[in-house]
C-alpha cells in the first residue's frame, strides 16, 4: 500500500463542522444572559456531564435505529436493568463505596459497571432474538412489541424490588466539588465527562479504524449491499444490539449514581430524552448523537436556570428548531 499511502495528502472532502460549533455557540451566547461566570461554568460542566451520560445511553439506540431500522422503545429497559444490577453490586460493597480513597471507590464501581453492561448486553441479545427478530421491517409491530418488552421489564423490577426509590449514594471520594477560584465543579460530573469521552472516542475508533466498524457504517447506509458483498449482517445486528444494550446498562448505573437513586421506571422516563437526541443527531450517526446529547443537556440546564417555566418544553423546541434547519438531523447517515 506504499503507493497509496503517499496519496494521504490528497484533498479530502470538506467536513461539515457547523453542528460541532453549535454547542460552543450556544454556550457563548448564554454567557451574558447567565451573568456570573462561575454560574456559567457550573451550568456548562453540568450540561457536559449530563450530555455524556445521555450519549452513553443513546449511542447504542442510534446504531440500532440506523443499522437495523428497528424502533426499539424497549431500550429504557436496559437502562433500568443496568442501574439495578449496579446497585446490587454496590450495596454489598458499601464500605468500599463510602471509603474516602478514590481507588477503593473505583474498585467497587468497576465491577458494578462491568456487570451492569454484561447483564444488559445479555438481556439485549435475548430481547433481539425473542422479540425483535420476528418483526424486522414491521415498524408498527416493533413499537408495540418493544413497548411491551419495556413494560414487562419494568413490572419485573417492581415485582422483585418493589415500587420504592432505592438510594444509590455517590462514592465517598466523588462527593463534593473541586473549587477553582469561585467556580465549583462537582467531582462526579468530571468522572461522567471522562467516561463519556472514553466511550465516544472508543466508539469512533471502532467505527473508523476497524473492519467491523466499516461494516456497521456501511450497514447503516445499505444493509442489502453489505450482504451482497458476502457479509452476514444479521450477526452484526445482534452484536450491535448487545453493545448498544450494554452501553445503556452502563449509562443506567451512571445516571443512578448521578441522581443517587434508582427506580424501575427510570429507563422509560429517559426514553423521550434519548429519542430526541437520536432524532436530532440523525439516525445512525454516533457523532450526531454526541452533539445532540450535549445540546439537549445544555438546553435543559441553561433553560432551567434562565427560563424555568420553559424547561418543560425546551427539548421539544430544540428538536423542532434543529429539524426545521436539518430535517434529517445534524448528521444524517441513513436514507430513512
Amino acid at each position: 500500500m506504499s503507493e497509496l499511502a503517499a496519496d494521504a495528502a490528497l484533498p479530502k472532502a470538506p467536513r461539515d463542522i457547523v453542528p460541532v460549533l453549535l454547542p460552543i455557540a450556544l454556550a457563548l451566547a448564554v454567557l451574558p444572559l447567565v451573568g456570573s461566570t462561575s454560574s456559567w461554568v457550573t451550568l456548562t460542566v453540568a450540561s457536559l456531564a449530563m450530555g455524556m451520560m445521555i450519549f452513553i445511553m443513546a449511542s447504542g439506540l442510534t446504531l440500532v435505529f440506523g443499522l437495523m431500522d428497528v424502533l426499539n422503545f424497549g431500550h429504557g429497559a436496559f437502562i433500568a436493568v443496568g442501574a439495578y444490577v449496579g446497585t446490587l453490586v454496590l450495596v454489598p460493597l458499601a464500605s468500599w463505596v463510602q471509603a474516602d480513597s478514590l481507588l477503593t471507590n473505583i474498585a467497587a464501581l468497576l465491577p458494578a459497571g462491568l456487570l451492569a453492561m454484561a447483564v444488559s448486553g445479555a438481556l439485549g441479545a435475548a430481547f433481539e432474538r425473542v422479540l425483535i427478530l420476528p418483526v424486522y421491517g414491521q415498524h408498527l409491530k416493533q413499537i408495540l412489541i418493544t413497548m411491551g418488552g419495556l413494560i414487562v421489564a419494568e413490572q419485573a423490577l417492581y415485582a422483585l424490588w418493589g415500587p420504592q426509590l432505592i438510594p444509590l449514594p455517590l462514592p465517598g471520594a466523588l462527593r463534593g466539588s473541586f473549587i477553582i477560584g469561585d467556580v465549583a465543579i462537582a467531582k462526579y460530573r468530571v468522572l461522567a465527562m471522562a467516561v463519556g469521552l472514553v466511550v465516544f472516542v472508543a466508539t469512533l475508533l471502532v467505527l473508523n479504524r476497524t473492519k467491523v466498524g466499516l461494516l456497521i457504517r456501511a450497514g447503516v447506509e445499505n444493509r442489502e449491499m453489505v450482504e451482497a458483498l458476502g457479509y452476514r449482517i444479521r450477526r452484526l445486528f445482534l452484536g450491535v444490539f448487545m453493545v448498544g444494550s450494554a452501553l445503556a446498562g452502563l449509562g443506567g448505573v451512571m445516571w443512578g449514581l448521578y441522581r443517587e437513586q434508582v427506580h424501575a421506571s427510570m429507563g422509560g422516563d429517559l426514553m423521550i430524552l434519548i429519542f430526541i437526541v437520536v432524532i436530532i443527531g440523525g439516525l445512525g450517526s454516533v457523532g450526531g448523537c454526541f452533539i445532540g446529547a450535549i445540546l439537549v443537556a445544555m438546553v435543559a440546564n441553561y433553560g432551567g436556570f434562565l427560563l424555568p417555566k420553559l424547561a418543560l418544553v425546551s427539548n421539544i423546541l430544540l428538536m423542532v428548531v434543529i429539524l426545521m434547519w436539518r430535517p434529517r438531523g445534524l448528521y444524517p447517515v441513513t436514507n430513512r
Partner: protein
Amino acid sequence: MSDLLTLSGVHTHIGRYHILQGVDLIAREGRTTMLLGRNGAGKTTTLRTIMGLWPASAGTITLAGDRVDALSTPDIAARGIGYVPETMAVFSDLTVKENLVLAARSGPLDEDRLAWIFQFFPALKKFWLSRSGTLSGGQKQMLSIARAIVEPRKLLLIDEPTKGLAPAIVGALIDCLAEIKRRGATILLVEQNFRVAQELGDQVAVMDNGRIVHHGDMAALAADTALQEHFLGLSLEAHQ
C-alpha cells in the same frame, strides 16, 4: 465452454406481483452474456434473484453445478459472485479506500490489482481518501465496478453500468469491462445501450414480460437487423 450459471424455470414474486415468469438462462464460463430488454422486462429482478436479494418462488439456479437458489445472499456472494447494482450502492459515508477494503473479503487489498484498476479508473486513485458520497455519478459507477473486481470473481453480475453516464465515461467503462473479459471473467451484463452490448457481448438473452424470449450469439443479433426489430423493436412497440 461449460455453463457456469444456469437458471431453469425461475419465478419471482415481489409482493403480489409476479415478475419473473419462468426464466431460463445460461451464462457460459469465460463469456459475456448480455441481458437485453425494455424497462420493466425483469432484467434487474433476474440479477437480484440470482443474488438472493429477492428469492425465487419457483425454479432452480445453479452456479458451477451447485444449487444456490435456497442460499442466503452472503452465502451466494461468498461463492464468488461480484454484484454491481443498478443504483451503484456505494457506501457514501465511507471513503473510496474503505469501500474497496470492505469488498476485499479475503484479506488486505492487492496492490497490483489496485494498480490495474487505477489504469481504467484513475479518478479512484485521485479520490482515494475522499468520501464516496462526494464523487460524481460516473465516479460512483467506477467505484461500484471496482468493488466487484477488487478480487478475482467467478461471475460478475452488472446492472446497467452505462446508465446516465457521459460518453467519455462510458468509453472507460467499456475498456475496463473488455479487459476484465479478456482476463477470462464470466459476466452477466444488463444493458440498454445496444452499442455497448454489441461491443462486449458474446451471448445475448432478450427478456420480455418476465421471460427470456430470445437466446443466442450476440454477433448474430448484431448482424441481423430484422432479428433486432423482432425482439427489441417488437417488445418496445408492444409496450408503447
